[in-house]
């Protein structure tokens, strides 16, 4: 097995009243792209801030490349790039000044790399930060996270505010980083975001890790969104009796539902009717995600 990029043991940050993250155990290998999913307030950002050494754990430990995130924070950050979920405010600084200043703090950044990322993300660094739109601020934060070609990139809801074209460019940047061997940790509540790039996904719920699975395992759960168009009336009673068919909605001559298990009971139920349209697709991660939260 590859060495671990991130390892947490019983990592806990307790803010009281059930808020925070509790007993988190994660093992993320080098070179992996890991999606960390959960709704707002589930503990994603808290976990990331613990990994970045910005806040201190109530108990447990977090290690990045074998280094303690709290005690070896400076050494850890030489290897890490970070895009925060809540963007900092740089007021009247120009984008070019922000990247130069942070590059000066890091000391290991090539100007050509900054320029390349600015071109890829189509960001004008000549503007003042306060004049940037939210999306442009997000682009700048992404440049700060990737510009030094870190071994590990930690991204907190990185596509917030990006338009679809730039989102595609972002996925390209993530894939390129993975190609050069970097590990990526992406938190999100938008499942389609991780669907594009992640190898494994962890789902966190109310401060507790609900599951960690390879993406294909989650996607391959035996559940399908089905949509059937009938030439005549919908055989509602027969459909209601189909084992594994949930969320049945009937409108005019159309029936939709979520089917778990095999198709045989459904096929038997519609046998003898005039089906003029039948579509079935794999559930989106949103739908899988919802099943964990129901």
């Amino acid at each position: 097995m590859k060495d671990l990029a991130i390892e947490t043991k019983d990592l806990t940050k307790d803010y009281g009243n059930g808020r925070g993250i509790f007993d988190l155990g994660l093992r993320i290998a080098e070179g992996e792209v890991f999606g960390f999913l959960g709704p707002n307030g589930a503990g994603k950002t808290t976990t990331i801030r613990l990994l970045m050494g910005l806040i201190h754990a109530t108990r447990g430990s977090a290690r990045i490349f074998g280094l303690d995130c709290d005690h070896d924070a400076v050494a850890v950050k030489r290897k890490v790039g970070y895009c925060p979920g809540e963007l900092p405010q740089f007021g009247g600084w120009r984008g070019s000044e922000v990247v130069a200043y942070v590059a000066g703090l890091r000391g290991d950044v090539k100007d050509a790399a900054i320029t390349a990322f600015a071109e890829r993300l189509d960001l004008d660094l000549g503007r003042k930060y306060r004049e940037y739109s939210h999306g442009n601020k997000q682009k700048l934060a992404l440049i700060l996270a990737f510009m030094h070609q870190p071994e590990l990139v930690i991204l907190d809801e990185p596509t917030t505010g990006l338009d679809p074209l730039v989102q595609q460019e972002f996925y390209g940047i993530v894939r390129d980083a993975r190609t050069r061997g970097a590990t990526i940790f992406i938190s999100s509540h938008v499942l389609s975001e991780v669907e594009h790039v992640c190898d494994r996904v962890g789902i966190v719920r109310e401060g507790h890790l609900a599951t960690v699975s390879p993406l294909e395992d989650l996607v391959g759960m035996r559940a399908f969104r089905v949509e059937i168009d009938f030439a005549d009336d919908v055989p509602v009673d027969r459909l209601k009796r189909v084992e594994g068919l949930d969320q049945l909605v009937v409108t005019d001559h159309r029936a939709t539902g979520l089917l778990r298990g095999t198709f045989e009971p459904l096929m038997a139920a519609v046998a003898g009717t005039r089906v003029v349209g039948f579509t079935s697709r794999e559930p989106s991660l949103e739908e899988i995600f919802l099943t964990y939260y129901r």
Partner: protein
Amino acid sequence: MLIRIALKQQTVGLIALALAGVLGGVLNALAFIQIAGTTPAERAAFAQQMTLLGAQLSYMLPVPVRIDTLSGYLEWRLFGFIVLVFAIWAAISGSGSGRGDEERGLVEQWLAAGVGRARYLITRVAVFAAIATVVIGAMQLSIFLSAGGEPLSAGELFAMGVNLLAATLCCYGIALVIAQLVTTRRAAGGIAAGLLIALFLINGAGRTADIGGVRWLSPFYLFERSRPLTEGGALDPVGIGTLLGAGVVLLAIGVVTFARRDLGGTALPGTSRESRGTRSPSRDPLLRLPVLGPLRQQRIWVAAWLVGFVALSASLISITRTIVDSLTSSEVPFMRAYFERAGLSVYDSFVGVIWLSTATLLLSVYAIIQVASWSADDAEGRLATILSAPVSHTRVILERLATLLVAVGLITAASSVAVYIVAAGQAITLDGGRVALAAALLLTIPFAFGAIGQFVSASRPRMAVVALSAVAVFSYFIQQFVPLFGWPDWVANLSLYTLYGTPMSGDIKWAGVAGLVGIGSVATAASLVALRRRDVGA
């Protein structure tokens, strides 16, 4: 709801000003009762001494009148200076109402919720006026209750309160208008405070020299024209009328301008958003260097302070000869003897007193403003960005202090050169080495203030400015009241300003300087521990 939020945002100012006002009022009233004596002879002697002191401080305080009475003493000693404190408060509040909320996106939320622009700003103005009324009322009431058997009527105090309120609202109007012309609260507050200090000094200069009609531009002159405590509650109709009129006009201009300009923009033409259109990082090498990087980003702010401080120092020194000559030409032998004993008949000593006492106060204000920006670094995510780079907490703490000291070093160096040159132009010979040493020792004041502020900022960022301002006010009052009450040296040494001493007028107080350095060092070490232990952004 709008009123409640506006009130909440003014809570710190309300508490701080009410405390400062009440404390200042009560202590000054008690001080007078304590030191002025009770017999006519004692009162006459006290009046003579205070008249001497008043003459020395005429660049800051009004000329004392009926100083043998509590009314006259308060009018001179308390209200002559506290009007500047209220003016600075008004500058901070006015810039916050006119620009601060907008910077934080709150105005956009209000407007989106259907609140009209004029209604929004008028509400803020009204809340400020209400709070100022409460603060001034509390101060006047505390003075009235502390007056003991001294003759001091409620009507006189009420009139003075009205006068102070009018001056405060006028200064608030100035800040509100300035806030419409710039794009950041920092710029608005800085320009407004700088302008008000300049207007305060113009009024001070007008007391000792003929500066013509320029003095009418100063709200402090208009305030000073009324002497209700010594004139039986009478307000100067021209002074109070002009203050109120100017205040209303300025507030109206602020509201109308706010209603017409773009959110986030300025009311000035030709300030459209222009981009240099680049994909490259800045080539400025300073940005990538420790200390010089942050300093480079503050360059306009530091330059403004440097220019303002140099101008202030030069103006103070330029009136030195006039003031000292008028003091030493007194026909009262006692007065001449007093000045000679105090060393104030000597030009270079006088330079030391007025330059360094002003410098220590202003440099502590500079440090407080820096501490405010450090706290904002935390709240606005910049500290998290810095700590996301391979940068230790130690470097953050030390770099902040180093940046503060380099900036203050530049300001004091330029100021000391200006003092030396202007003094030479006045045919006043200064010991260059002593000027340089006094200027260098000035660094201990912002070091101590900055380190204490750093500690509070690292522990409780939201409390940093309030706590450090309390240290400054406490130090100021201690310095002022120790001689009056005859408190022991150890009490005097609780004031950071007292620890600095008067290095150009007497022996250098090395123990005090060491105390300041010690306080700064201990607070720096404590802030390192505090920043390491605290959660960033919490």
